[in-house]
């Protein structure tokens, strides 16, 4: 039974010291943060309905992993996916419009917060059933092998999903069939209202990989550079050698499970402690320490990002509602092979 453990400070191929890369990571994380804050506000203004799950606090885990992918690589996500969609390149306009249920949304208003999708960006969806996407992700991995192309599939899920049957079945075949997949577990320590140690016999999720003779890694999910470094290696082994892996990013969601969750199962102290390790502030401090950025830059970037998010709200507000006569569109696909 092999369990590879690489220290998180190993040197990656691509330098993570240059300003442009760091700035890109910073901007992406800030975009997610501001977007999610705005989403919360819009939800309370009843512009967004249904279920709404936020990525606030998880930005480093999201950006650190997805930024390691190429455009044509695939991402499978869950219902807590707004940040994933943005990180994969979907515009804030399209995501916000979908949250507003408009025809210009990623899923033309039919999906909502939990079911974003983009063929162009190879963002293969948000899923409302825990663990449902893992076996599906394996299917795409299999297609890549089948066609002999060189893309990679990243399947992102939470700690709760590691206890459901689909997780086991998916990891097993990923290894068995040598699929180019990186399984990313965003472990925010809670599956809805249940803490990891009340749901999982093994609380260090990365260890579960050993049951499949698969690479298992664990990283500080609040440190975007650490996440990026390890993901680079795992993506490479998937792409070059078709070696799947399980990466556990230990992180925290500042808000409740969803906008409807009174969040009474976590203590306020715990939340504060994690906020003290805020990923965006951390990177800002790091860059300031390297003299790569000033406070004025930070302010300017914040204003830009905030405007971008506000523009997405305007776009969503002005977009048309779906036409009721098109209720039945796309239940089936036309044509045949």
């Amino acid at each position, binding site marked *: 039974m092999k369990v590879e453990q690489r220290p998180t400070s190993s040197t990656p191929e691509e330098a993570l010291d240059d300003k442009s890369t760091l700035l890109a990571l910073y901007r992406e994380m800030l975009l997610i943060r501001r977007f999610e804050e705005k989403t919360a506000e819009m939800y*309370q203004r009843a512009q967004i309905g249904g279920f709404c799950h936020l990525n606030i606090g998880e930005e480093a885990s999201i950006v650190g992993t997805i930024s390691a992918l190429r455009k044509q690589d695939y991402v499978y996500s869950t219902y807590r996916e707004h940040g994933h969609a943005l990180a994969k390149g979907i515009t804030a306009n399209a995501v916000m419009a979908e949250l507003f249920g408009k025809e210009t949304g990623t899923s033309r208003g039919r999906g909502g917060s939990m079911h974003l999708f983009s063929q162009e960006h190879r963002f293969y969806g948000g899923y409302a059933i825990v663990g449902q996407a893992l076996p599906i992700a394996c299917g795409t991995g299999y297609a890549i092998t089948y066609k002999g192309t060189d893309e990679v599939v990243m399947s992102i899920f939470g700690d709760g999903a590691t206890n459901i049957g689909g997780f086991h079945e998916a990891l097993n075949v990923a290894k068995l069939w040598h699929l180019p997949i990186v399984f990313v577990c965003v472990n925010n320590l809670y599956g809805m209202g249940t803490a990891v140690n009340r749901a999982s016999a093994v609380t260090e999720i990365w260890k579960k990989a050993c049951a499949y003779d698969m690479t298992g890694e664990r990283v500080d999910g609040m440190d975007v550079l650490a996440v990026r470094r390890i993901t680079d290696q795992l993506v490479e082994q998937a792409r070059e050698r078709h070696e799947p892996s399980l990466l556990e990013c*230990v992180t925290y969601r500042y808000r409740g499970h*969803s906008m*409807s969750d*009174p969040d009474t199962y976590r203590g306020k102290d715990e939340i504060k402690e994690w906020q003290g390790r805020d990923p965006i502030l951390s990177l800002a401090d*790091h860059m300031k320490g390297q003299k790569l950025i000033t406070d004025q830059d930070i302010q300017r970037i914040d204003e830009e990002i905030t405007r971008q998010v506000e523009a997405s709200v305007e776009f969503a507000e002005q977009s048309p509602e779906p036409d009721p006569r098109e209720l039945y569109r796309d239940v089936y696909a036309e044509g045949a092979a």
Partner: protein
Amino acid sequence: MPDVQMPRLSDSMETGKILRWLKKEGEQVRKGEPLVEIESDKANIEVEAYASGRLSKIVVPEGESAPIGAVIAEIGGNGGSGPSADKPAAPQEQAPAAEPEQKPQPVTAQAPKPQATKPEAHVVQAEKAMAATAQQAADSGGEQYPHGGPDDRTEVGAAAAAALNVIRRPATQGDGDRMRVSPVARRIAEEQGVDLRQVKGTGPGGRITKEDVETAAGRGTPSPTLRTRGREQPEPALIRGSEQPQPAPTRGREPAIGEVEVVELSKLQTTVAMRLAQSKFSAPHYYVTSEIAMDDAVRLRQMFNEAVDKSEAISINDLLIKAVALALTKFPEVNASWADGRIERKRDINIGIAVGLPDRLIVPVLKNADQRSLKDIARESKQLIERARSNKASMQDYLGNTFTISNLGMYDVDQFTAIINPPDSAILAIGSIEDTPVIKDGQIVPGKRMRITMSVDHRVIYGVTAAQFLQEVKRLLQSPMALVL
């Protein structure tokens, strides 16, 4: 200037009450700071500011309520700085960026301990978690589950579309004479002796409904009258301003009682009438006639009947049955039915014998005619017809026909066309045997000729097949020894 609206804090919330403003008018507010405490229908919630600036105006004071979306305060000036929207309101206490640890452990200090053995331990744990839950009203949602709004839709939606299509379907769909009568209306009509053909349907799609029949029955007379709901001429006295009763305007001539004798149909006749109409108007009929030299057949029959007892005598009809049955074994495509777009070939050959009585038409069926001897057919057909005539036939006698023969020869009819008897695809109409001059070896000699006409359903049997089938029947009848075997 960003305004602060009453937020939607739960899905059943419609208005909220301002409990306490946490900032004063004129004070600076930072985005993310707690701004106001609001009482929703479920709980008291602290709401943060979504923008930074000076709290320029408090629109809704403490103690007052406002609906969701109403402006409760105004924040002047532009937004503040710092990405710390989700940090607690103590900006000077920013924690230094944490060094990435080798293998950080998740904070489990706050996680409840599972598998408590003493009841008290888990109760303590529950108290903590329950503290806020207890604040919520008795009927609060669990995860404060989002709820759809009230059912305020006034127009019909997609959910009822299919049902409404069924109800509103128009009456006539090319079925011609088929009536649209609801089952209960039919039952009541039969019970009350109402003639459905004379009842106008006012139900959905023009269907005759229970109400239509009950009204017609209520009229009490067996003579049919047309009745249209809501279009009866108003009573003269009700016409405004009119004192004198006026003669009721006529609307087409209704037959006065006494001019005709109305004969009610029995149930059987009604059924036959409807089935034949259905057959005629749904099966595309075409007709093939053949003239048969019956000299040998007649002679054979004579010889046969001289040799047997009277009770075992065979008729021309019996010869026909056998001939048709044998021909059907050679042309199984004629022994078939049209069934909803498909052709069903029947395995058994069961010949219906049309028996005309003065007041009814019945068709007893001689089963497996191809497997019976001529003698057997003669005996069976006699019995069948006798039972039918004396009303002693059972249901079985009338079921299962795959081909029917109708013989009007005894009435001196030399040729006629019959209507196909469902579910058959063909029927053979037999005319009388006539002595007639015929050409034989260039000479004119007397001969016995019989004309038979087959009516055929063109969906099932094409012309060439019908012609060949008829040719085979002719051949057998003209070489009748084959029938004796």
